C-alpha cells in the first residue's frame, strides 16, 4: 500500500460523501442536527486541498495531514472524531505499509475514536461501523487474505455494522436525548464510516 493509494482513498472518500451528502444529512436530520453530510463534505474537500498543497511524502503524512485538517476544518463532532482516527493512524503506521501494518494502525485509530468519544460498540455511533471493519482487517491478516479482498471484507463489515445501528437506541451525542425515539434510524456517523471504508476498497481494487 503506497502513498498514492492513500491520497486516492481520500479523493474517493470525498467523492462518495459528496454523492451521498443529502442521504447523510437526511439520516442526521432524523436524530441529529442535520449537518453531517455538509460538514464531512466540506471537511474532505479541505483535506484534498491540503494534500494537494503539502504533497505528502509518505503514507503516514497523508493520514496525519488529513486528520489535522478534519480537526481544524469541521465544526461538528465528526471533525475531532475522524480527525483523531486518521491522525492516530498516521502517528503509529509502520513501514513498509503492509496489510498487517495498516490493520494495526487502523485498530489504534479506532481506539483513539472510542477514547475521545467515550463510545463503545452498541452506542449507535461511528464506532459500530469502524470496530467491525477493524476486526475484519485483523481476521484477514490472520488468515493471510490479500489486500484487495481484506479491504472488501472491511467495507462489508462496516456496512453491516452501520445497518445494525438501525434498531439501536443512541447512547451518545444529540441522538441520545431522543431516548427510544432514536430507534429505527441508521446512525449517520456509522453510515459515513461505511462510505470511507468503501472508498478504500474501491481504490485498492
Amino acid at each position: 500500500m503506497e502513498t498514492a493509494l492513500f491520497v486516492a482513498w481520500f479523493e474517493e472518500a470525498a467523492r462518495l460523501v459528496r454523492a451521498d451528502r443529502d442521504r447523510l444529512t437526511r439520516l442526521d436530520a432524523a436524530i441529529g442536527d442535520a449537518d453531517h453530510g455538509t460538514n464531512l463534505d466540506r471537511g474532505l474537500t479541505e483535506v484534498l486541498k491540503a494534500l494537494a498543497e503539502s504533497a505528502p511524502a509518505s503514507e503516514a503524512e497523508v493520514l496525519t495531514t488529513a486528520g489535522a485538517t478534519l480537526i481544524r476544518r469541521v465544526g461538528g463532532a465528526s471533525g475531532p472524531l475522524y480527525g483523531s482516527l486518521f491522525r492516530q493512524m498516521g502517528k503509529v503506521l509502520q513501514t513498509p505499509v503492509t496489510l498487517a501494518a495498516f490493520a494495526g494502525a487502523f485498530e489504534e485509530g479506532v481506539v483513539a475514536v472510542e477514547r475521545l468519544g467515550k463510545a463503545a460498540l452498541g452506542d449507535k455511533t461511528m464506532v459500530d461501523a469502524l470496530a467491525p471493519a477493524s476486526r475484519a482487517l485483523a481476521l484477514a491478516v490472520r488468515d493471510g487474505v490479500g489486500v484487495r479482498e481484506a479491504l472488501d471484507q472491511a467495507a462489508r463489515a462496516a456496512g453491516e455494522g452501520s445497518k445494525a445501528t438501525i434498531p439501536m437506541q443512541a447512547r451518545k451525542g444529540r441522538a441520545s436525548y431522543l431516548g427510544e425515539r432514536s430507534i429505527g434510524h441508521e446512525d449517520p456517523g456509522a453510515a459515513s464510516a461505511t462510505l470511507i471504508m468503501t472508498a478504500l476498497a474501491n481504490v485498492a481494487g
Partner: protein
Amino acid sequence: MVGVVLVSHSAGLAIEAAALARGIAGENAPVAAAGGTEDGGLGTSVDLIEAAVRGVDRGAGVVIIPDLGSSVLTARLLEEDGRVVVADVPFVEGAIAAAVAAGAGVPLADVLEAAEEARTFRKL
C-alpha cells in the same frame, strides 16, 4: 492565575457566559470565550479554542469548560496533563465557580474542584 476558557457551539452564548462569569468573579479573573465556528456558525473551532487558551494562560494552567458534543471532543484534543484540563461541569454554573476560584488565585486543581462542585450544587 488559572485561566478559564468557555467553549460553546454558539459564539454569543460563550461571550455572554464569559461576561457573566467575569461580572461575578471580578474583572481580573482570566476568562475567555471560544464559541461557534470561525465563520460565525454554530459549532466548534479548534483554532478559536487554542487562541483563547493562549490568551488566558498566565502559566498556572487553564480550565476549559465546554457545553456539549463537538465542544467537548474538540476541547479534549487540547488537554495537556496538569496544564490544560477539561471540566465536566454545567456550562454556566461551572463557568462562574471556576472564574471565582481562578480570580481568587488558587491553583489549577482547586479551580477544577470548584467547577466540579457546580455539578451537584442544589439551587433549591
